[in-house]
């Protein structure tokens, strides 16, 4: 088996025993990136030299008999929404092109302290807004299973790089499905942990009450390995949970006998692709064969998930993205010469006739933001700004918060009778690039099965459960109560021991 085909668990063990050097490991993945990323466009930055330096340092420490971190030598790709001091952090936006943060995200720090090697930053939908990766200012990511199709989004680069063996593990973030949906469309495993399980410090905020970082890998076991390192309380994030971090990898092999899995009838309604439906039904059968029981449950307010999500997320985003104003960092529009001259004449406090701007300052704000943000980001900023405006707050934001509570309650009720809920990740397999770009509403519906998890603040995992007749992966989603990560990972792991969908790899042109 080639190095890049090996699992994260195997790679870490091989480096620890000395069977494989960290340098060889990192070189193999860097080589794979160089070979295939031209087709996929999963990376916005690759830290070749620094990664090799780190690998060499790890090998040196091992040779000297000094202790190594729990992920020593493991290459990790990080979504470009997480701050890194050694690579730009752009959120795939022109607004932050070339922006270099002065600090590492907490998750990046934890990975580095565990001796993982950050090989690069992955492409994404601009500011994590989108479900197809077509909203990247630096070009879309292509699905390794079919280069004419989307990898999903917004963590499309992270999903695609794992699917194409360019990294054994990637870090994504999930606000409404941005880990689970691309994992499903790319045939890999992605975990969206409970809100607060992983520190958000250093994750460029999209919607603060929904954002959550999570691992993406080829298997649940690899996700568990990484989660052990990146989960845990951070005093620098007031919303991070103080609960102790369980040994996720040690809990994987418990049998599933007695597990109660919920099936939501409305998950199989209109809009669901028949091939996806069939793959998911087969997964239920597999779980039953493994000793689980299937029960019908209801999530009565699930239909309100998308409208609720598309109020709360844009409202928070409109405020979170206000800081990109050109004044302090990021893109600033070049001043319009004629207008500046007028300002220099001491007229800066008067409304300027030219261009309709109130002042050169307001003009700088408007033009910087007009130039720096892409259309989907602007659309959501406008949606959120409108919904939070005086006179609309109660009708939109306040009502959305109330519905959010009902959705949370739905899950609490359902989890009284079942341990997990299973269903499709997204209604269709990977769609063609450009297929939905003209219809934002159709694009928003790709999140219909995933937003509930974020609104409820609970955990969810997605992994492959079959392939369409044309060879595209089909994803299964499991949702569990708050802090049910051990169970989510165990269920996915047991399923992956009984099936081989997660082993399949796309054939990429060399």
């Amino acid at each position: 088996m080639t190095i890049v085909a090996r699992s994260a668990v195997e790679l870490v063990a091989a480096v620890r025993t000395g069977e494989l050097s960290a340098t060889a490991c990192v070189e193999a993945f860097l080589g794979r990136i160089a070979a295939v990323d031209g087709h996929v466009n999963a990376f916005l930055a690759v830290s070749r030299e620094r990664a090799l330096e780190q690998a060499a340092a790890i090998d040196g420490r091992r040779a000297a008999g000094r202790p190594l971190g729990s992920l020593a030598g493991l290459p990790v790709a990080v979504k470009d929404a997480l701050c890194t001091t050694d690579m730009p952090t752009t959120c795939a936006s022109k607004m932050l092109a070339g922006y270099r943060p002065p600090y590492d995200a907490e998750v990046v720090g934890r990975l580095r302290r565990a001796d993982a090697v950050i090989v690069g930053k992955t492409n994404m939908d601009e500011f994590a807004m989108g479900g197809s990766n077509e909203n990247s200012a630096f070009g879309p990511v292509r699905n390794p299973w079919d280069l004419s199709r989307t990898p999903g989004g917004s963590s499309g680069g992270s999903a695609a790089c794992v699917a194409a063996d360019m990294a054994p593990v990637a870090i994504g973030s999930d606000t409404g499905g941005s880990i689970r949906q691309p994992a499903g469309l790319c045939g890999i495993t992605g975990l969206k942990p409970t809100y607060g399980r992983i520190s958000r410090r250093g994750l460029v905020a999209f919607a603060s009450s929904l954002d959550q970082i999570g691992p993406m890998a080829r298997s649940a076991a690899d996700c568990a390995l990484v989660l052990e390192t990146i989960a845990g309380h951070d005093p620098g994030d007031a919303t991070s949970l103080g609960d102790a971090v369980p040994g996720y990898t040690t809990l994987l092999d418990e049998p599933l006998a007695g597990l109660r899995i919920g099936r939501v009838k409305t998950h199989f309604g209109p809009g669901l692709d028949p091939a996806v439906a069939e793959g998911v039904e087969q997964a239920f059968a597999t779980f039953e064969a493994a000793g689980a029981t299937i029960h019908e449950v209801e999530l009565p307010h699930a239909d309100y998930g998308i409208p609720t999500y598309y109020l709360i997320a844009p409202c928070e985003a409109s405020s979170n993205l206000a800081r990109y104003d050109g004044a302090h960092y990021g893109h600033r529009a070049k001043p319009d010469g004629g207008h500046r001259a007028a300002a220099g004449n001491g007229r800066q406090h008067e409304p300027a006739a030219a261009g309709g701007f109130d002042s050169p300052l307001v003009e700088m704000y408007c033009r910087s933001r007009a130039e720096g943000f892409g259309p989907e980001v602007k659309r959501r900023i406008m949606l959120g700004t409108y919904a939070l405006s005086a006179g609309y707050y109660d009708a939109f934001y306040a009502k959305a918060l109330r519905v959010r509570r009902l959705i949370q309650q739905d899950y609490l009720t359902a989890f009284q009778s079942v341990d997990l809920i299973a269903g499709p990740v997204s209604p269709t397999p990977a769609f063609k690039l450009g297929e939905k770009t003209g219809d934002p509403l159709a694009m928003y519906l790709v999140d219909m099965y995933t937003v509930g998890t974020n609104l409820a603040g609970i955990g969810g995992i997605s992994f492959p459960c079959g392939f369409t007749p044309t060879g595209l992966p089909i994803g299964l989603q499991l949702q569990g109560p708050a802090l049910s990560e051990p169970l989510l990972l165990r269920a996915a792991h047991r399923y992956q021991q009984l099936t081989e969908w997660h082993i399949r790899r796309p054939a990429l042109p060399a």
Partner: protein
Amino acid sequence: MTSRPAASEPYTTVIGLEVHVQLQTRTKLFCGCPTTFGAAPNTQVCPTCLGLPGSLPVMNRQAFALALRAALALNCRIATFTKWDRKNYFYPDLPKGYQISQYDLPFSADGWLEAADPKGAFARRVGIIRVHLEEDAGKSMHDEAAGVADSRIDLNRAGTPLCEIVTQPDLRSPQEARVWLNELKLLLVYLGVSDCNMQEGSLRVDANVNLHILRPDGSLAKTPIVEIKNMNSFRSVERALAYEASRQWEEWQATGAELGSAPKQTRGWDDPAGVTRGQRHKEESSDYRYFPEPDLVPVTVSAEQIAEVRAGMGEPPGELRARLADRWRISDYDADVLVNQGRDLVAWFEALATLTDDGKVASNWMQQDVLRTLNERGGTIAGFPVTPTAVADIIGRITRGEFDTSRGREIFAAVLETGRSVADVVAAMGIAAVGDDELESLCRELLAANPRIVADVQGGKEQAASGLIGQAKKKNPNVNPARVREKCLDLIRRG
């Protein structure tokens, strides 16, 4: 509160205040950066207060405790559950594009603070609508030299904890506003909540003012409310309010415009010119799109926490004044003078009063000697070189007749100057108590030399004996004038 026009003016001035106070914390409200004033621009900053991508706020518990202390001292109701909200607006000194503040659930509300004119002209209880916590913005510095508009931003202040105190429109004159602000400042300094230094911006005042005018038909006219900004001292608050009241009176006479006829106007105080000037109306229409801050968790406050803060609060100035007047039998005015000097000076006074067991004498010495010396020399009572014990020693010797008050002051000055003990100074100056025999022979000598005074006294003019005292002090500076007088009168009567 009635709003009947005072006799002197045809209207009542109605004033409410919005006071921003910087809390005396070591670090900022949502990050660990220091709050020291005067550091080089942009040296006390971090990703959080710079609003960098991915940064998150974490609440400073000490700031919350200090704010609780202020609210309790302002007799506010403390919310058991409070949350943070974002106030969204664009400005270069606001790097996140929003200010973390409190909107619909402030941590405290419904309080009051009373302030009285020290001379007894008025006393006013002013209602507090709410006290909330928020972060400060940075500072914009506009350099428009040489015709080139150039703005610089200093974010050292960004994220500094502020308490916003909003009063009911309960004040009825510019003077009342000044006196009330003085009382508020004294209270907050006493509590250690803020240094209230207006020059450094740790206390900022905006005022809302309008007039209630009694028409001849008995109906009440209210002028549109104006918010005044840019006032840099309590004195300018008083002046700005007085100017604004007369401006509104003239405007009402000219236009008859009443409350509600136009949106609230903001006017800036131009101190050198002594006028308020209209500012752009644009801000009035701004919509801050408040919503709950998702990066912070709500704060719950327990009864135990409130009790703990209350226990550590110390006596507020109002209570202290009443206690001093009552316990030491000094006038309200004297108690006010002492309390206005701060908690340390009051402690010094009480030590002196306890040692002398005479509050009035102690208060006189505080005001005439200690305070005057402090004013002349500068500095605080904490660094004062004379102890209460030394002053009590001087007062005791005066009471026992060793020397008179003016001699006592000379000794006080010498102790202050040399740092020596009272006993040493008394010895060095050759001051010794004059014995009875010595006094009698001195008086006999004086009487023999002044037959005329003796005759006058015998003729019933006792005050003529005063002429002997100056002569006695020349012969022996240590004699006690009262004893000289008494002894001389006695000798004359006995013949």
